[in-house]
Structures are given as C-alpha cells and as structure tokens.
C-alpha cells in the first residue's frame, strides 16, 4: 500500500479562540501505482489533507502511513527528509524558483535528499519535452512549460507517492489536457501513486478512482 490514513484529525484555531475542525478521516487508502482524483468544495480541507500527507502540516491525531512508514510519528527533520525522498509535490502555481534554470529547479529537488543525479534530471526534462529548455529560467518559459518543469521536479527523487494540488487550475484549457496526461503518464511510467486534487469534473472524469472528500471526511462529527 502506498498511502494509508487512519483516524486523522486536524483542527484549526480560529482568531476568536474557537476550534474549527477541518479533517476527520477514519480511513483512506491508495494502492501502490494507483491514481486517484480527489474532488471537493473550496475550503473543504483538500489542501490541508495534502499538507498532512506530505508532512508539511502535522495532524492533531491519527496515522499517515506512506510507503509503510508512519509519517505522523516521525520527528520534523526526519519527516522533511522523508518528504524529500519519497513524496513528489506538484503545486497549482508551479512554485518554481525564479533564480534557477529549469535544470537547476529539478536538481534543487534532488539536493535536499542528497541524491543529486544530473543525468536523471536531464532525462526527466527530456521526458516532459524540455530538452531544449534546460538552461531557461521560469520567466523564459511558457506556463505549460513551467508546469512541466514542476512535474519533472516532483519526480526527481523517484518518489513513491505524487501529490498534485490543482495542477491544471492555472493553465489554459488548451494545455490542461497535456499537463494532466503528462502527470498521469510519467507517474505510470515510474510506478508512482498519484493523488490529484481538482475541482474540475472534466479532470476528475479521466480517473478510474474519484474520491469526494466529503464522502470520507466528517469534520462535523467533531461538533
């Protein structure tokens, strides 16, 4: 199993001092190599869930097991290291570093796991069709190209799990399908499980497994 969530709880403290329950997930699983679309309303906790899975945000309770490792039990430095080595993240706004070239952005992802592999970084960029744009900075790339760099960077450390947060939301319709196909095909090729958050029904419809957050997240149960 690539991902298991058990009894996850996450609350936010409101400015007024009150508690806002965001996540109450009893059980969620994603098999190795499986691809799933996660849909839900805005503000429903999708991004928080991805952050909890990635170890960026700590759950208040429960277990987050990625690749048979209980991420929620790891101390923060180990969690960071684990994220660098086993989890790839594609953001809605790409989040490339503007001072770095396309190749350097991919290498940057590798550097935090101490697994710098420039030939593999080049191969990834060739894979996403950017073999002629290795030395270009994000500002010199089109939106579609930037997202391709982001995908290559997410795969840089040969992760076991890819988390994609609305990866097509900032891309025009013409490029949406390309980006989506790219993410899915590369994950398939590298045997990486994929959990893709989207609010687009068209995007979700392309996945064999579509999960509605509201179906397995019951924050209202806490109130």
């Amino acid at each position, binding site marked *: 199993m690539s991902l298991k969530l058990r009894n996850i709880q996450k609350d936010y403290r409101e400015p007024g001092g009150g508690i806002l329950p965001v996540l109450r997930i009893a059980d969620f699983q994603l098999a190795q190599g499986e691809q799933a679309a996660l849909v839900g309303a805005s503000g429903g906790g999708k991004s928080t869930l991805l952050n909890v899975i990635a170890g960026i*945000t700590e759950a208040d309770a429960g277990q987050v097991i990625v690749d048979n490792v209980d991420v929620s039990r790891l101390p*923060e*430095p180990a969690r960071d290291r684990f994220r*660098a080595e086993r989890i790839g993240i594609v953001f809605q706004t790409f989040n490339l570093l503007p001072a770095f070239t396309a190749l*350097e952005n991919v290498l940057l992802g590798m550097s935090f796991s101490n697994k710098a592999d420039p030939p593999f970084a080049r191969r990834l960029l060739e894979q996403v069709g950017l073999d002629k744009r290795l030395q270009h900075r994000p500002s010199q790339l089109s939106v579609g190209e930037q997202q391709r760099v982001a995908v290559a960077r997410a795969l840089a*450390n040969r992760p076991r799990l890819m988390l994609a947060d609305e990866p097509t939301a900032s891309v025009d319709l013409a490029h949406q399908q390309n980006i989506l196909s790219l993410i899915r095909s590369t994950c398939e090729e590298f045997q990486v499980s994929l959990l893709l958050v989207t609010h687009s029904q068209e995007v979700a419809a392309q996945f064999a497994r579509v999960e509605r957050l509201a179906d397995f997240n019951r924050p209202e149960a806490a109130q």
Partner: protein
Amino acid sequence: MNLLSIALKSIRQRLVASSLTTLSVALGVALMIAVLIINGYISTMFRETGTGYDLVVGPQGSRFQLVLSTIYRIEQPIENLPWRFYEQMRDHPLVERAIPIAIGDQTEEGQFPIVGTTPFYLTTSYGARGKKFEVAGENMNEAWDAVIGSEVARKNGWTIGSQFRLIHGGQDDHIHDERFTVRGVLARTNTPNDRSVFVNLEGFLMLAGHEKPIEEAIAREAAFFGESEEQIRVRYADQIRNAAAQDHSAPGHDHAHDQPLPTLQRQVTSILVICKGADTVRRAAAAMSIMSGLKERNQAIAVNPVQVMRDLMDNLLANVRLAVLILTGLIILVSGVGIFVSIYNSMADRRREIGIMRALGAQRRTVFAIILLESLVLCIGGGLLGLVLGHGMFIAGAPIIADRTGLVIDPWHVEPLEFVIIPALVVLGTFVGFLPAMTAYRTDVASALQQ
C-alpha cells in the same frame, strides 16, 4: 546542488543590492588595509631607523625633541653642546664610537635638512639588522664634501659633482656663500636619510655663524663643566689669543674660516653613541652606565632612541592608530548592518521561496544555513574584495606616493592584523545573518505556500 550554490543564486537574484552591500564592506576593509599599511610603514620606519645607535646624547631638554631632530630631522635641535663634551664622550671607556651631529641648516634648493657630521656616520650601520649605507661615489672625506640622500638627488636633480649652498638655520634669507660639492649619493634607505644632505662637519663648522663667539663660548663652557671662566681661559689660552688676532667678533663678519674652527668655539647639536660590547646585552649595560653617569652630572641627557620612539608610538601614535582603526571598524560594522537590512528586507519576498524549498524537503536548519551562507558570502566576499582593493590601491599608488613624499611603500606587505579581518568578517556575517536566518527557520511552510 549544494547550499553554497543555492545561496549564490539568491545573491545573484538580488544583484544590485548584494553588490552595493558587498562594495560597502569592501571599501571599509580597503580603508582599514590602507591604514594598516601606512601605520605599519611609519611604525617600522620610526622604530627601526634609530636601532643602529645605542644612545643619542644631547643638551638638557625634551628627549622626544632630541631623537626627532637628530635621527628623524622633523624637529628643531634643542641647543648646542660644547666640543669638549663630545671629546669626552668619544674618549669614554665604554664608547666604541661617538658621531657628532650638527643640524639646523637647510639646502638653498629644496630646503632639505643639512647634517654636519663625520664620514663615520655613513660607515656605521643604521636601522635594524645592521643595515649599511650604500654610497655611489665617495664619502665626505674633505671639508667641503657632501653626500646626499636618494630623494635629494632625485628631487634636486643633483649628481656627483653638483654644488650647493646652505641657508643658515634660524636666520631668514641668510645664505652661506660657501659651496659644498656632492661626492656621493646614497642608495634608498626608506629612512629620513633619503631626504637629508650630509656635509663634512669641518666644513660645516667653518661656515660663518656656526662658531660660538669666544666670550660666549668661555661662559657656556664654564657653566657646562662647572669650572671658573679663568680655568677656561687658561685651558684655551692659545685659541683665545689667535681668535683675538683674527677678530671674528667684528660686526658684519660673514665669511668662512679658512682654518679648522678652534675647539673652544666648536659646538654640536647632539652625539650618536655606539657602545662597546660583544653583544646587545653588554652594549645595553654600557649605555645604561653612560646614561646614569650623565644624569648624575646633570650636563646633558642620553636616551635610547628605540625606547623613545617606542614610547612615542605607544603613547601618541598608537592612540591615533587605534582611533582610525576603530573608525574603519565602525564603517565595516555599518556595512554589516547594510547587509542585515538587505537580507532582512528580502525575507518577506522570499517567504514563498523558503516555503517551496521546505516543501521540497529542505529542513529548517537547511534554509537557516542558506540564509546564513548568503550573509557570510557577502561579508567574506566584501572582505576579500577589500583586501584586493586595499593592496591594489598601493600597487597603483606606490609610485605616486614615492614621487610625492619619498616614502617607498611595499604594497605586498601584509600586516598581522590583516589576518584577523576575515575571521572578524565571519563573525560579523554570522551575527548579521542570524536574525534573517532565524526568520527563514521559523517560516510556516503551509502559510508560506499560500502566499
């Protein structure tokens, strides 16, 4: 991709701000290097120039004035000493060599100081490590011979055979008629000797006005040695009789003597003394004995020139040096504050960047290190640039300084304090980078990514 290259990328992204802050550090360091080199040069020159002599003996007065006028020629002489006293010093059982010095006059052209002395002056070691004068040509063996310093030769364009006249010290517009002839030119010594003109003491004393009038000489000698004037008149009876015959005391007397000046009328401004002794310890002991002997008699003062200059350097110049160094240190500190402001202000813009790196797996200590490295690179880079600039200034400016002041500065000379600059900048860089680095360390990834 290592942390340093990531830090360098960030610096390059803010190239203008980074360059300006680095330049400010560099200029501060360059200024400090300039102060250190000049100070080091002056200290060395002051400390070492007098190390060839065990004692400087002169009339009662300021020991600083005595050394500064005798060795560095940057002060007026105190007064004069009778020749008989010089002879006593010369014949002292603890004295290896006594060199009489008569100063106060200047060259007509260029106003270089005149040093009336014996040829021994130029055959005696000067400065530390037994440096010897190198004379192109001959020594000033005859009465009207002169040897000139390298700067005098360069500025006045004098060579062997050139002739010159002297302006009498303390009397405006009085130029001696007699001419000295340059017999030798000194190689550069990087000491005040380069800007001095050495003339044979015999010729110097024969110049009009350099002799002590007979009656004054009798009174001065009687007072100096604690004898009666009658005793002095008996001692110098022949000289007094001859002087009366020549009537040199007549008003308007302005011609030189054609015979060596009688010893009664001779006077010197100071005496350089080299003591007997096989090593420096024995020489120092002899010098101490002479000093205490003179102190008891209360006739003259004898000082160790190195000790006097050390006192001067420590009491006066050391404070000036310290003040300038503190000032340049503050400049560097202000530059450090500039780096802090530059990095700290950029942190708000870079919050998202830090969030991305953390999301990619960078640990808190990693982003802390990246920001700290940026600060260190700016500080150390500025420091290294400052070292290059500081020494570069002297490489470019050394010929101009030499041309204008006669000081030959070695641009490659490294002061020990320079080795402290880079470690100090490492401390400064760590200090000014700490707070921005802590900001990066504490960045909340989730909220930074939502920015």
